[in-house]
């Protein structure tokens, strides 16, 4: 995040703390894609992910007065979202966790953007779908670390702040996630890359 964005975030948060509705709406609009991304990767189901993303922002709003600016607003949102996803996954019965349910609304879909290279585009869509499925099949502890590291692009210090876990432990979880994913996606080697 650029210093300008962080500064702008802080100004918007202060305005929102004073009751500026548009300021909070701007923050929601700014971070909805990122928060929906992590809730989708963690929960799989589109409807669950959207509900959880909304709950994240509602919880952030309710706790806004307690935000101390000791972390970025985005990091704070990630922490709320991850806590909510963890709680949700714990509440699920094992047989309802959509780890490999290709027929549910977690099934990925996309349009092919370029007819000049349909085969290549198709392979990209299939690769994204396979990777998405493999990520959702990871154990939750590995999944949350991998999502933050490699899909959201955070560093280990940010992840440690969000998850409240020592960075060395997170590195180990990311390593295990990468190992599992490489194994489960090995059949794609050479076919799509």
């Amino acid at each position, binding site marked *: 995040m650029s210093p300008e964005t962080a500064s702008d975030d802080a100004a918007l948060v202060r305005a929102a703390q004073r009751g*500026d509705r548009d300021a909070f709406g701007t923050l929601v609009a700014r971070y909805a894609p990122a928060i929906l991304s992590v809730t989708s990767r963690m929960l799989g189901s589109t409807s669950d992910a959207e509900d959880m993303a*909304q709950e994240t922002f509602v919880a952030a709003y309710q706790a806004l007065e307690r935000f101390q600016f000791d972390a970025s607003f985005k990091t704070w949102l990630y922490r709320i979202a991850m806590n909510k996803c963890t709680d949700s996954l714990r509440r699920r019965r094992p047989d309802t966790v959509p780890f490999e349910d290709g027929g549910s609304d977690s099934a990925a*879909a996309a349009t092919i953007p370029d007819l000049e290279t349909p085969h290549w585009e198709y392979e990209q869509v299939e690769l994204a779908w396979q990777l998405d499925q493999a990520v959702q099949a990871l154990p939750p502890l590995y999944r949350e670390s991998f999502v933050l590291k490699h899909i959201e692009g955070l560093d280990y210090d940010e992840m440690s702040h969000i998850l409240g876990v020592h960075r060395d432990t997170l590195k180990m979880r990311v390593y295990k996630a*990468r190992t599992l994913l490489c194994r489960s996606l090995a059949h794609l080697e050479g076919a799509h890359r």
Partner: protein
Amino acid sequence: MTGDRTNMSEPDQLAQRFVDQELSAEERLQLLARLGHDEPLRTALLSLEHLAFDSARLPRPAVPAGFVGDVLRRTALASTEASGGHQARMNPFLKPRVLHWNLASAMALAAAAVLVVAVAMTGQAARFANDTSAIVSAPALTPDSPAMLVRLIIMQPDAKAVAVAGDFNGWNPTRTPLERLSGDAWAVTIPLRPGRYEYMFVVDGDRWVADPFATERRDDGFGSENAVLDVRPMVTPL
């Protein structure tokens, strides 16, 4: 950190540290020198780099239209419940206002291929649309608005048949079937004139499936959401 990775093989450990950009300059040189003759190390490194690269490019799910407004309504409701209604009259957050939210339709724009065809469309009102007035279901065909070929694809490994229903075919669940490609994908190419169209996929004749990667969605009034496809006219160079 290295103590946490004692169970790794030495090539794996090196590859993992490389991906995490933890190697010193000297270690990087040693690693690069080994790559030419160390097949396990090369394989491990390549797999991890592919994984990191592909993961960073995974498409983000579309934020549904109205998401911000929904959040603000829920915050207002939460505040009302917390304050017993009194604060609702005082807090400027709770004033009923509409905050327009619409993700840039970059993906949908990209989905409109640039092949021009002459085709007659028979646009129908959107049966599923909650408010069809905002949807341009079939703009008039003029020389300035040629039809575009749009290719839709969905992964449905277990389906026996897939079709697409939307504004462009009268929401007929059998009229526009998708063809099964190799593997798990189904696809169809349809001609559409510039405009905004809502659609859903229909799996095995009776299961309506939203497009989770659509860049914009609208409530269909039946408890689900239609994808919105924004077909833009092709820009021709002057």
